[in-house]
């Protein structure tokens, strides 16, 4: 009896440690998410740094949004240009639900309100998905583009549901809470967002392991063979699309809770483009890729947009570079190192990486200088700003800075090309070695 209990306890401990070992990266990310706001806590005034909390909240929302988008582009091979529709409509549904709760229309604790957004997203995804998933590839992309534009145009036309240009305002403090939280402070909303992000990420990860997730991969890779196995690719696309809409709706609900207003911006094309950029830059081939993309883009959006008018140019250039040179995105680049890491040969790459760093930085510096000069000449001038590098004022009207920028870009580019070739040679050599070692073993 006692032995049995001890056995159970040890197996539970072993189970826990093996869970921790398998998912240590996710657990670490969750820990960081929980602790990070407290690192910026202002103890003298006893309040949270609003900027950090709102940025972290946005990261959580965008993670769910990007992962739901990757259910289409990465896992099912469906390129959608209208994914913001489900974020936006989920958000509108949530805003109306919160308002109805306030008016006593129906009862739902605030913690469960994101489900309303999810169900809203799911409903619209079922309707639009029934139409769009009849086609695949380019035709599918065009239909989603059309649907996205249709819904965005409707958002400005119909005032009752969308509230026109002003959007729908709401109040998250109106409802009851399961934990007795008032949600007056943004940190409480942040922890709600973390909770729903964890739930959504886990569910989406789980979905990739179900037969549906596997069949979505199969239909992406070869839909004719998937048909031969006996599945209807259209049905697989439809179910995948609908579930993706559900999670985008949850992201929309979190958006509504966080900002307490849902406007045209949430359904419009730039938001759809955002999903594509985040997901693709992060990496479509790896489940966690979009998470990286969401973190990076939100960081850029909140950090760089304060410094520069042209941060979207950098995002666009990063996207183009990824499409042209690294179709696996950031996650793909990281995973390329996996065999070298396993063979314990990372040390061999350290020197080449160091050599490539200097010209790389030169190219980046030259490019940024040119872009900033350009933007200060027009947009900056219109806003009455001056271009300052620490204490040095740069006048975009003079030739000097432009020449420096061009020289940095061109010189660095040539240097980078040379070092890049060397890096490629070393990489090849290391890979060959690993192959040879494996072959011997």
């Amino acid at each position: 009896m006692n032995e049995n209990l001890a056995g159970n306890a040890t197996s539970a401990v072993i189970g826990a440690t093996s869970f921790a070992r398998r998912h240590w990266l996710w657990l670490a990310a969750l820990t960081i998410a929980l602790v990070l706001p407290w690192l910026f806590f202002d103890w003298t005034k006893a309040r949270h740094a609003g900027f950090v909390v709102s940025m972290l909240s946005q990261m959580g929302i965008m993670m769910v949004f990007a992962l739901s988008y990757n259910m289409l582009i990465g896992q099912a091979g469906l390129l959608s240009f209208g994914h913001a529709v489900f974020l936006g409509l989920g958000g509108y549904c949530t805003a109306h639900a919160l308002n109805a709760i306030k008016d006593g229309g129906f009862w739902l604790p605030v913690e469960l309100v994101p489900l309303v957004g999810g169900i809203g997203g799911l409903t619209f995804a079922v309707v639009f998905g029934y139409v769009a998933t009849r086609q695949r590839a380019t035709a599918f992309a065009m239909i989603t583009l059309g649907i996205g534009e249709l819904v965005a145009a409707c958002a400005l036309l119909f005032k009752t549901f969308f509230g026109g240009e002003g959007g729908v305002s709401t109040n998250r403090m109106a409802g009851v809470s399961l934990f007795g939280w008032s949600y007056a402070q943004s940190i409480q909303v942040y922890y709600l967002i973390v909770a729903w992000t964890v739930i959504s990420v886990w569910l989406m990860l789980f979905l990739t392991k179900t037969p549906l997730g596997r069949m979505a991969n199969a239909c992406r890779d070869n839909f004719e063979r998937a048909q031969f196995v006996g599945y209807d690719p259209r049905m697989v696309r439809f179910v995948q699309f609908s579930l993706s809409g559900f999670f985008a709706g949850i992201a929309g609900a979190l958006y509504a809770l966080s900002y307490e207003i849902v406007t045209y911006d949430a359904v419009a094309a730039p938001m759809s483009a955002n999903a594509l950029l985040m997901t693709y830059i992060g990496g479509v081939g790896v489940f966690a890729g979009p998470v990286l993309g969401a973190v990076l883009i939100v960081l850029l959006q909140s950090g760089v947009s304060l410094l520069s008018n042209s941060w979207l140019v950098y995002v666009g250039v990063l996207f183009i570079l990824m499409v042209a040179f690294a179709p696996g995105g950031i996650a793909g680049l990281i995973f390329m190192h996996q065999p070298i890491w396993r063979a314990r040969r990372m040390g061999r790459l350290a020197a080449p990486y160091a050599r490539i760093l200097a010209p790389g930085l030169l190219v980046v510096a030259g490019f940024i200088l040119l872009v900033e000069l350009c933007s200060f000449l027009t947009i900056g001038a219109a806003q009455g700003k001056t271009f300052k590098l620490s204490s040095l004022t740069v006048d975009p009207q003079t030739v000097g800075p432009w020449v420096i920028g061009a020289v940095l870009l061109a010189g660095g580019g040539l240097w980078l090309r040379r070092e890049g070739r060397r890096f490629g040679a070393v990489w090849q050599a290391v890979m060959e070695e690993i192959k040879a070692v494996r072959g011997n073993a």
Partner: protein
Amino acid sequence: MEVFLVSLLNGLVYGMLLFMLASGLTLIFSMMGVLNFAHASMYMLGAYFAYDISRHIGFWPALVVAPLMCGLIGALIEMYGLRRVHKNGHVAELLFTFGLAFIIDKAVQMIWGLLPVPYRVPAALDHSLFSIYGTNFLAYRGFMLLISALMFCAIWLLLTRTRIGLVIQAALTHPEMVGALGHNVPRVFTIVFAGGSALAGLAGVIGGNYLVTEPSMAFAMGPIVFVVVVFGGLGSLPGCFIASLIMGFVQTFAVVLEYSPADLLALIGVKVTAATPLAEFLTIPLPRIGALLPYLMLVVILLFRPRGLMGTRDT
């Protein structure tokens, strides 16, 4: 009748402008399978180039130089961008052009500012050509019609009477076979891409001052051009021509017909008041729905006839 005739003429002008944009895209899409998102960006660049050139030199040089610049940019994009991405498949190519459109959009905002630029009709053409029922028909509209008609003839002759035109036509439907016969298909691709971009640039030159030259013009025009290409059908220039005209008429007539579904219901004796269910839907006048029509058409066509009017294969 008066409204009808004027709108007919305006629709014709707009449709021909659309054809100038869509013809290049149809050729690119049919041959390379790439729905080029950056095509409307070329239209925008053409307008901005023309604005800058006409400010310093004059409108007439701009009419030639701006399209050539767009063509050059198109050739560079094809040779150094698309060809590299080609091996990663159609989705990568589509994403590449999407990223390009995104960057060009932002670059234009950075270079020329966020507000519309004062790109105006040249003074020589800024007078009334004739008037019907008291409405003046601007000489510039006649000029636009003339340019687009000339361009239509030029493309037609090029495609049917020259050797390269025949190769292009063959490559529209059977690109692999043309390559197997020993033609340099990548070079044909570059030529078509550059030519299409130049045509889009030309459309920008003559359309930018007729409409408005602003950073959002590419984004507004892009989906409409897609609709025309899909509606006309893959690999069919005549289909593209008809689709452009239909689109031009639809867009123009939607603006002038001040009716709403409620007026239709009134004909059969149903009165729509604020209390009627869906009153908001029913009382929206057609001009406001007009903006929705292209997208609606895009979805409906792709669903029920993916090969378009005269297409030879599905989109």
